[in-house]
Each structure stands twice: as C-alpha cells, then as structure tokens.
C-alpha cells in the first residue's frame, strides 16, 4: 500500500515540477522579449512588474516549492535528469510560440535529453529506499 502510494506520488510531483517550470520559463521569456528595454541596476526589478513575467515568477515559486517537496524523498541525481524532459517542452514552446529557429543539431540534443530522462526515470527515485532496512 505504501509502495503504491509512493509510486503515484513521485510521478505526480514530477509532473507538477516539470509543468510549472516549463510554463514559468515560457511566460518569463515571452515577457522579457516583448517589453521595452530599460537600463540600470534596477532594470531586473522593473522587469518583474510585467504581467507575463509576474505570471512566470508565480509559476516558478510553485516550481521551487514542489521541487523542494520532491527532494524530501527523491535523490538529487534522480530529480535532475527526470525533470529535464522540461527542456524538450521548452524547445517546442520556443519553436511554435516564440518563432525561434531550432537547428537539426538542437533537435538531436533534445532527443538525447529525452533518452537520458527516460533511462533514469525507470529506476528508483531514492537510493536510500533501495538500500534501506
């Protein structure tokens, strides 16, 4: 029963971590690229008041909290590669919504990341659980 709860909890939390990060980055990227450029040390602070950037920041706060929760039971060396599937989603959003050009080399890199993510996600999220009592 505990194992079944754990097995559902991990993919659900991974999904929240990935989606909040991907959408947060996308909204921030959209906001930064569509606002009037400003200079000076306070410029990054002013950027935060852009509605798109503010939405991105809110999603990235959710990302930070959900990732902290995930790290409370899963290894860092599991969380890093498994959540990297977000890079692929970011590339797709950049291509279709920000009109960014993605070369064949970038797509090849994206596919390698997907392969690495899949390989790591097939294993246990925690080495302590595996080697535990």
């Amino acid at each position, binding site marked *: 029963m505990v194992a079944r709860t754990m097995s559902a909890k991990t993919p659900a939390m991974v999904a929240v971590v990935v989606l909040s990060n991907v959408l947060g980055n996308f909204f921030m990227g959209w906001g930064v690229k569509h606002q009037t450029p400003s200079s000076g040390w306070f410029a990054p602070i002013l*950027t935060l008041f852009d509605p798109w950037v503010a939405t991105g920041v809110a999603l990235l706060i959710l990302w930070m909290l959900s990732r902290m929760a995930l*790290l*409370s039971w899963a290894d860092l060396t599991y969380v890093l*590669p498994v959540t990297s599937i977000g890079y692929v989603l970011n590339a797709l959003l*950049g291509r279709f919504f*920000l009109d960014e050009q993605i070369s064949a080399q970038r797509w090849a890199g994206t596919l390698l990341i997907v392969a*690495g993510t899949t390989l790591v996600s097939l294993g246990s999220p925690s080495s302590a659980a595996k080697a535990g009592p």
Partner: protein
Amino acid sequence: MSPTWLYLSLVVGSTVVSDLLQAREMKDHGELHDFRPNAVARTLSALSRRRYLVLSILFMALSFFAFLKLLAVADLSFAVPATAASYVIETVLARLILKEHIGPRRIAGTLLVAGGVALLAA
C-alpha cells in the same frame, strides 16, 4: 567573455550551490506526506528556520536574476537547456557530498543528458 557566457556561468554556479544545499536540507528535514494547506504552512514555517535552506533560496534568487538577463540576450531554446551544464557537476558533487548512490543506469542517463546539452550549446 560575452554577456551570454557570463550570465550562463553565473546561472550554473549559483544553481549548483543552491541545489546541493536544498537537497541536503530537505533530506535532513524528512519526507513530506501531508499537502493540506495547514500542514504546508507548518512545514514552510519549520523550513524557514533552516539557515542553509534560506541560503539555498538566496543562491536560487541569484540564479533567477542571472537567468532573466540571459533570456534577454539569448534564445529560450538555447538558454534553458544550456543551464543543464550543472547536471554533471551536481551529479559528481551529490556522490561526494550527499553520498547518493549512483548506479550505472543513472550514470548513463546523466551522460546522455549532458551530451544533449553539449549539442544544444555548441
């Protein structure tokens, strides 16, 4: 050093420090089970008293502002994956500092991710 590589280095360096501190502190705190609003509030209150966790969030904030600057000078489809250069550094340090067990599957997967990042950044 061009602005792109300067901001990228800053993002990667601060991310590595932040992630290692955060992983250590969250493991030390113990697994979170209860996600009801009151329990989450109590957990956040307890976590806010962990100074290394607070330090990790400061490094995360530094990484965030550097990333914001990076997004202004580079494509999203370059900036996001290029920051994954921290994976290899973090994997080595997680083994050495956090004493995580890294089996052949995780090593192979992490190397594939690192290879993908190299292709994206080249």
